[in-house]
């Protein structure tokens, strides 16, 4: 952003403005034929030729008519083709060689009797009735009755209900319709209208026959006493399809029961569609308790007249989400209605009578409330899954064989997660259990529905609650569970994520993405394999996890040698940017890079700096040290380091010494701007940065952190200053590229008063962090090689200063003559974190100065001597007069004396919150997970040997420290010297292993080991490690280890071009129908704009998609 003093003006404003009035728009959109307009729902019908048997045996003389017919008539015709076998051989269906002629199966009674002089039966087809909310119409699509796997791109076509009007037209059915269902016998479609508070019936025969007239009837919902229920419906479901194949559609009204949700009436009513009469239902009382309407209540049930303005709407539970499923495979057969309300953290499960579909009983299933009062958790969509036999990995659905059966339901809640409940058990499952805790669990039942709140089912760090979270915080809009059966005969599909056998969910999201959910994958293992830790990525295979899209997660770096698989080491694994896509497990794409700012350490000595642990790789191509993060690291180490693939993303990680807490750039919004702008006040309240947006606890600022004032960049003039200010650079400043915004008429006058401030490095210590205010302290210059446990005396500091100077030299120690010209004193520094632990001295080596003009501080430090003293300290920043900082101040927030661990997508992870009990102070969340951490100091507590190294948990359930100090085996290439004059040996290096001081660090998705936080120094030659320095760090601000992490979780997303998908519907033959309500304005010449789309997806081949728009 720039502030400008542009004097130019727009010309010809008046007429230009007429044409450019804001309400106009210059966006051009390509013309396109659009058949849909805000589709919100779809229902299906079967229509075509029918022999009228009325359920009796077929005869050649029976009438053949073209009519709507029960769903099962087309379902039967959509089955696998039957081999026509004139020679009587035992042929294999689907094999053209064995069976050259096939024919479609037909339902019982509809067989061809032409050989008996019967009339031929015309074909029947499926029809989709697509409800469109904005125009209040139903559009119709047609698709053939054939096996789902035989579908091709053009198989689903839109029909035109009014050929005399241009375009493909729908049928007007009502005002603001919200749901459409097929009636029980398939002869009518029933529509719920929110705009007119009634139902519409659409006669399928009249809609599909050749007569242009269409029959639509309005059905007023009423109680048995004849009083109209004039409430707005929000959802509707119908009882299961039934009806006799061979019967005609004789009724002049729909048949069967529909359940309609009336949120403002706190009622879900069972409505007889024939008459519109309420014949049963579920009602929530004022306390939110649901009950089945009694026989006495049903005749007089009433609601506020929302569509006629009568009656006040009382508060209460607002049911808006329904699903009704019959599971004929369950024993006994279940017919269940599930109700969700947008203001109630509970589902209501209603058991329906198998014959009447009326409520028998109900029970609430509470959901964990994860939102903060006064907000209340609610449910916006529900889906019931069939009974599933969990477990199994044979590639065959094992519902019959499995002894672990579950009947799950899924609910989208207002915390933007998807909750899972076990309907039979009546409890919620936890879909966010930390997989570290499940690593050794082989109990399919426990893994299928983990208990909430037990020690063994603690959630993964950062989980918002027990619900399934979509990728990148997408907002779920709808979910449906479907069964993907195995293919008969040889399965031509590639093994991998797109091969679906078992039960899966489809979840639509507001982002336009459509995710796939694992419920029970019968083609893959269900738990970890003890002997092969990489074979199964547990976070991806257990139930209720988003499905991963990357194949070959168990990939190893191997080669084939004479028929044997052998390990190799000279590889970084698959190219993640390859055109064919990424595959393989999580890994760093290269060894971590050391980014070393110039002037701090000689190139020959960079390896003494802390690094990521290396391990030995022994392959047929080479034996060498490799990063523990690499693909070629041993399997057990890789398994340990990436314990939760779901929490791991593809991104670049950076560990930066005293790095920034925030990473946002122009194209990212992860954790706040790297350079912020606020006001500074210097007054009775101290020296403070104040920001009304209260960003500091969110940034994770801690006491003793660093505030680096950035001033302004004089190379861009005054662009970084407000109008009337100039970017002033003090003539004595030796700090390059930093000025200060000052009023144009004050800068010169204040130059002297602000000299110390303007010529310093302007680094400050955070004395106190609150959400909207940081109190700053002037920061002394501290020797970077000050021992971690503190210095002992001035002489030690002078010696360590010389050592620090020596680090910048390329000479070997035996012939190096470093000399640090500055003066250092070993004293307590109250502006840094205290060193008061066991064995610590409490003191640091501080840079000092005197009144002697020859006394100099490091560049960017200014000497500050208290009145009456002759010695003072070199300061990185001093408290300025208020007049020096009246302008906006740009600054960075940095960690002090620690590495920050930041991912470009994950950002800086912390558990800092605002203390609301007494002050505005930033504090650690006592409920925060110990793995919610993003900084590594060099002197953390020792690791607790009793704590599990994978989970960090002690036997008593508490956590050991994270990060923590330990010792590990480090493999590295070391220099080899021929003599004590440091002459290179031949070969010049050796591969060696040693026990190295280390720090283990866990975060949400990975665990890593930082080795050599300190360096003992060298005796004669560079990196001989023969020095005797104790816990002396050699890092410096800006030192950074970075690596690109790939192979992180990549959700499987259906290849749909949806703008705003709102609903998933299970279609005929197991097909998936995604309703995209969204209006997509194209900017491409090749892709037209739309007013919504409908997609049909084949679960046995996710790439087979039919599109209607």
């Amino acid at each position: 952003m720039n502030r400008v003093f542009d004097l130019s003006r727009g010309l010809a404003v008046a007429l230009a403005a007429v044409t450019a009035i804001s309400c106009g728009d210059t966006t051009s959109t390509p013309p396109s034929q659009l058949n849909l307009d805000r589709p919100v729902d779809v229902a299906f019908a079967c229509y075509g030729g029918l022999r009228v048997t009325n359920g009796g045996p077929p005869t050649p003389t029976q009438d053949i008519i073209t009519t709507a017919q029960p769903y099962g008539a087309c379902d039967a015709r959509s089955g696998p083709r039957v081999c026509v076998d004139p020679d009587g051989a035992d042929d294999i269906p689907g094999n053209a060689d064995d069976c050259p002629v096939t024919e479609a199966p037909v339902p019982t009674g509809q067989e061809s009797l032409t050989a008996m002089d019967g009339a031929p039966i015309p074909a029947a087809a499926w029809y989709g009735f697509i409800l469109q909310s904005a125009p209040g119409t139903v559009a119709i699509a047609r698709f053939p009755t054939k096996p789902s796997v035989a579908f091709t791109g053009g198989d689903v076509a839109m029909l035109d209900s009014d050929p005399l009007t241009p375009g493909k037209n729908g049928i007007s059915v009502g005002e603001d319709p919200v749901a459409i269902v097929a009636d029980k016998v398939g002869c009518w479609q029933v529509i719920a209208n929110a705009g007119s508070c009634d139902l519409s019936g659409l006669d399928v025969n009249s809609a599909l026959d050749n007569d242009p007239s269409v029959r639509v009837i309005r059905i007023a919902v009423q109680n048995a006493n004849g009083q109209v229920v004039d409430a707005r419906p929000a959802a509707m479901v119908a009882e299961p399809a039934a009806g006799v194949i061979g019967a005609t559609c004789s009724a002049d009204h729909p048949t069967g029961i529909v359940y309609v949700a009336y949120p403002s009436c706190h009622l879900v009513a069972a409505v007889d569609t024939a008459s519109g009469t309420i014949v049963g239902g579920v009602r929530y009382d004022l306390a939110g308790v649901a009950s089945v309407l009694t026989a006495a209540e049903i005749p007089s049930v009433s609601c506020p007249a929302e569509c006629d303005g009568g009656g006040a709407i009382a508060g209460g539970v607002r049911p808006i989400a329904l699903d009704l499923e019959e599971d004929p495979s369950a024993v006994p057969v279940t017919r269940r209605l599930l109700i969700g309300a947008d203001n109630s953290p509970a589902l209501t499960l209603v058991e329906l009578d198998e014959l009447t579909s009326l409520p028998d009983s109900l029970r609430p299933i509470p959901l964990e409330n994860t939102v903060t009062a006064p907000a209340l958790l609610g449910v916006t969509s529900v889906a019931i899954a069939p009974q599933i036999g969990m477990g199994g990995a044979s590639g065959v659905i094992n519902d019959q064989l499995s002894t672990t059966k579950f009947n799950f339901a899924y609910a989208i809640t207002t915390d933007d997660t998807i909750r899972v409940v076990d309907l039979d058990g009546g409890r919620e499952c936890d879909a966010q259990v930390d997989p570290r805790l499940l690593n050794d669990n082989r109990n399919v039942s426990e893994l299928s529905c983990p208990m909430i709140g037990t020690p063994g089912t603690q959630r993964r760090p950062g989980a918002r609650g027990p619900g399934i979270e979509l990728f990148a915080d997408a907002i779920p809009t709808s979910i449906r569970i479907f069964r993907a059966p195995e293919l008969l005969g040889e399965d031509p599909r590639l093994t991998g994520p797109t091969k679906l056998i078992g039960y899966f969910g489809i979840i639509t999201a507001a982002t336009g993405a459509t995710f796939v959910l694992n419920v029970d994958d019968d083609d893959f293992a269900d738990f970890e394999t003890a002997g092969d830790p990489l074979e199964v990525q547990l976070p991806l295979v257990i139930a209720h996890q988003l499905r991963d899209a990357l194949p070959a997660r168990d990939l190893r770096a191997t080669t084939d040698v004479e028929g044997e698989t052998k390990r190799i080491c000279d590889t970084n694994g698959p190219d993640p940017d390859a055109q064919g896509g990424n595959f393989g497990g999580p890994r760093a794409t290269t060894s971590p890079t050391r980014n070393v700012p110039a002037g701090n350490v000689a190139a020959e000595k960079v390896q003494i700096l802390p690094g990521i642990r290396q391990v030995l790789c022994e392959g047929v191509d080479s034996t060498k040290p490799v990063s523990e993060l690499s693909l070629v690291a041993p399997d057990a180490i890789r398994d340990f380091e990436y314990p939760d693939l779901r929490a791991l993303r593809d991104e670049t990680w950076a560990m930066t010494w005293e790095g920034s807490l925030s990473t946002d750039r122009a194209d990212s919004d992860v954790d706040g701007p790297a350079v912020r702008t606020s006001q500074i006040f210097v007054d009775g309240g101290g020296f403070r940065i104040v920001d009304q947006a209260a960003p500091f606890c969110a940034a994770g600022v801690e006491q003793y952190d660093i505030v680096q004032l950035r001033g302004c960049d004089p190379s861009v003039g005054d662009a970084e200053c407000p109008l009337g200010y100039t970017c002033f650079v003090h003539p004595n400043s030796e700090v390059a590229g930093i000025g200060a915004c000052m009023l144009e008429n004050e800068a010169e006058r204040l130059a002297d008063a602000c000299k110390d401030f303007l010529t310093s490095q302007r680094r400050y210590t955070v004395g106190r962090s609150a959400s909207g205010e940081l109190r700053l302290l002037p920061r002394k210059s501290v020797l970077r090689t000050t021992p971690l446990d503190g210095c002992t005396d001035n002489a030690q500091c002078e010696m360590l200063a010389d050592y620090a100077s020596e680090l910048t030299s390329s000479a070997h120690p035996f012939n190096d003559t470093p000399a640090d010209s500055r003066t250092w004193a070993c004293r307590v520094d109250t502006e840094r974190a205290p060193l008061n632990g066991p064995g610590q001295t409490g003191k640091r080596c501080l840079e000092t100065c005197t009144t002697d003009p020859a006394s100099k501080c490091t560049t960017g430090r200014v000497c500050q001597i208290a009145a009456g003293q002759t010695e003072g300290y070199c300061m990185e920043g001093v408290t300025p007069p208020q007049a020096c900082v009246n302008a906006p101040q740009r600054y960075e927030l940095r960690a002090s004396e620690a590495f920050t661990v930041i991912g470009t997508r994950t950002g800086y992870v912390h558990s800092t919150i605002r203390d609301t009990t007494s002050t505005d102070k930033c504090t650690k969340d006592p409920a925060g997970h110990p793995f919610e951490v993003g900084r590594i100091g060099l002197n953390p507590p020792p690791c607790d040997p009793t704590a599990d190294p994978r989970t960090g948990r002690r036997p008593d359930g508490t956590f050991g420290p994270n990060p923590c100090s330990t010792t590990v085996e480090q493999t590295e290439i070391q220099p080899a010297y021929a003599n004590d004059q440091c002459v290179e040996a031949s070969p010049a290096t050796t591969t060696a292993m040693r026990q190295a001081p280390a720090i283990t660090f866990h975060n949400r998705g990975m665990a890593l080991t930082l080795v050599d936080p300190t360096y003992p120094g060298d005796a004669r030659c560079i990196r001989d490690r023969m020095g005797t320095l104790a816990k002396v760090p050699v890092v410096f601000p800006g030192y950074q280890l970075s690596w690109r992490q790939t192979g992180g979780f990549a959700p499987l997303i259906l290849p749909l071009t949806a703008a705003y998908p709102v609903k998933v519907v299970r279609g005929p033959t197991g097909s998936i129908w995604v309703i995209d309500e969204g209006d997509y304005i194209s900017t491409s010449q090749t892709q037209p704009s739309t007013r919504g789309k409908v997609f049909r997806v084949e679960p046995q081949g996710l790439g087979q998609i039919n599109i209607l728009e």
Partner: protein
Amino acid sequence: MQATLSPPVRSKRLPMSLARRFKMVGLCGLLTACTADADQVRPPDDQLFFPTGIVVAESQGVAFVANANSELRFDSGAISVLSLDTIDDVVARWITSGDIPTDCEQDPDHRETLICDEAQFFNQGAGVRIGNFATEIALQDLGSNMLRLVVPTRGDPSIAWADWDGGRLSCNPNGDPNALCDDAHRLSYVQNNADLSGIPDEPFGVYADSAGEFAVVTHLTSGAVTLIDSPKSGTVQVADVLTGVFAADPTNGLRGATGVVGLPRATGGIVYVGSRSEDRIQTFTVGKPVNAAPPYLLPGSWFFLDAVGGNTGSSNDTRGMAFSPDGGRLYLVNRRPPSVQIFDTTTGPTGSPQNRAIGATDICRQASTVAVSGTGDAERAYVTCFQDGLLYVIDPRGDVELEDIVLVGRGPYAVAAAATRNKVFVTNFLEDTIAVLDTSPTSSRRNRVVLRIGKARVL
């Protein structure tokens, strides 16, 4: 053709204003038809002429309407004052007893709607005249029943302001009714100093912060943001201009700042600014230096609109923005894809607004503005659809439902709500009317146009 007269003398004229003035004079000299005198081209104070912005001051019983004069029929635009009590009275009698006052008639096409000549609803002599092509109006509460209106006008460009004393607006010390705002009330230059820079072109959106005593204006074609220092007493002036807030759209090169709104806070709000070219919301606070220098804009954090659309969660061309009355929700109207997006702006555990997308719904194309009315279960968002002549009513509860689609008139531009009066007002730019909707939850005409102020201009 009618001439557009130049404003009164400025302390220092804009070069273009002079050039245009000379052209007009020359043109008038050549055209015999150009004989209108000042009174003939003075805008009436009882008519609507291309109404754009509208705000409601319920406590004062008035609504303020900006007339953009987009046809340049008059010598200036205007801010007119509507009496809410008169509107309530006419509507109440119409609904309860079917009374049709003089100069009113029942809409033959929409029987629930009463169409009235607008003159009876205006507080005549209470308005002021401003520049042409006004866009929106922002309201600043000055206390003691005093209000201040801030109105960007694209024609000059300038930012007009006028104070309301409870009975009339004033923006000119001469005290004339319906007076043209003087230079001090038409902000064109930084710090009102003609030697400093002028404000950027195309001032568009505006937000006024009563507690913070400032206003922020966005610029449609430059992506700039202008800060107005608006103390209750003291000099109102352009205090800061920040350009380059938003990058240009890579596909068409357009850039621009559009919607602007402030998070209600007792100590001065966090200002949220949207863009036509980026899928990003930029926040600002306002710094007030202790040395009494003019305030300045402090850019804060930003967030991307990645919760909706395009299969990758990318939406842009933000237009209307509004907060719920308690500041807990931010409503954004985006044109690509057409959607209303709702963000949770409650204070999170860290003390800062959460700014997290929590819901969305598909809406019409080319939506313009949004207003929010009601609290709790009654909270609704109203979105104007300029192209389709519709008003979308959004229920934010649960999964964010579209509650109603209402035909309001040609070219609905701005919408404002009078929550306690259960009414919503929509300016219809292309037909010179204001549609008044009944939003009472117990009314049989809920979300229906019950009164149309003004008779639709014949195309």
